[in-house]
């Protein structure tokens, strides 16, 4: 009986242990991959910096600026829309026609500004 229990314990532990081993293996793989990537990135950045000095306006920078603009606009509009939908939904369920719509529209606008603020406050990454 005791042996049975022990076996049971063992078989229960096994998936746990193998998952841990998998995690360990994944971590090791990630380590080698990321150290190789880091080295590559440093080399890439140096090469890019050397290339970038003479030419200020790259074709990519217009794309970056545009994607940032589209992102800011869509994040703001989306927050307002989500707020409006939530407010309209509560109103329809509770029968308090414009009250919640107005409140959540304002909150959506606040959330939109918050989204934009968050984009603007991020350290300027090359990804924009």
């Amino acid at each position, binding site marked *: 009986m005791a042996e049975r229990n022990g076996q049971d314990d063992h078989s229960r532990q096994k998936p746990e242990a193998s998952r841990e081993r998998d995690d360990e293996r*994944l971590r090791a793989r*990630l380590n080698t*991959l*990321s150290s190789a*990537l880091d080295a*590559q*990135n440093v080399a*890439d950045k140096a090469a890019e910096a050397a290339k970038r000095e003479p030419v200020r306006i790259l074709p990519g920078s217009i*794309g970056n600026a*545009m*994607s940032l603009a*589209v*992102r800011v606009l*869509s*994040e703001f*509009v*989306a*927050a307002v*829309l*989500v*707020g409006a939908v*939530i407010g309209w939904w509560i109103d329809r369920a509770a029968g308090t026609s414009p009250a919640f719509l107005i409140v*959540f529209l304002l*909150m*959506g606008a*606040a*959330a*939109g500004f*918050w*989204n934009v603020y968050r984009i603007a406050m991020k350290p300027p*990454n090359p*990804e924009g």
Partner: protein
Amino acid sequence: MAEENPMDPIHQFVIKPIVSLHPLGIDASFTNASLFMVIVVLAAAALMLIGTQSKALIPGRLQSLAEMAYQFVASTVHMAGGHDGMRFFPFVFTLFMFVLFCNLIGLLPYTFSITSQIMVTGALAMLVISIVVVYGLIHNGKGFLKLFVPSGVPVALMPLLVPIEIISFLSRPVSLSVRLFANMLAGHITLQVMGGFVVSLLGAGLFSILAPLPFAMTIVLTAFELLVAVLQAYVFAILTCVYLNDAVHPGH
């Protein structure tokens, strides 16, 4: 409708069933959208499989394309998510390649652009957000909810700020899907309208000398659409990384 007005700019987005399937009353027909999704997946898989076959030290065209795509996404994921973010690399890479190929193949004449359907982009965005929520809850437990509680704020302001944070979070899938869909839809409509101008001017007697103008515009717009197609796939991928990063490290 197509017979009535061949220059209708919306006509290109109509979904037509190829094989009609209605199991259990659900419309699961194999449509032109499904067909092009299969084509997109096959094309992306072919690029990666054929590109990585030779494993040459000096890569050929396909191999360097495959390697470029891999390295581009890998560095993007690493930059946004850091070390722990790399476990999402397969997901982000799949998503990026799918959206990129949808956008690019949709630009070819006579094709159907899948990413101009809000249903498709919405499903992709919901997939991303579901993974963020599920992984965040499994990985961090209740700590994931710290995402909605800004740190260093007086308690009195919490009832106001927490709903704002929740709305802000809910707006993510909306903005993610609408951005991609709107960009592709607007671009394709613009191209179609410009092409329509060429056709109508050619049939307008003396005014047909003006026809090269919208034709030149179409060429410029096609190049611009190429930029938008790649850019939007990139933006979709990078924002996926940013949102997944929130799941790995909640609380800003």
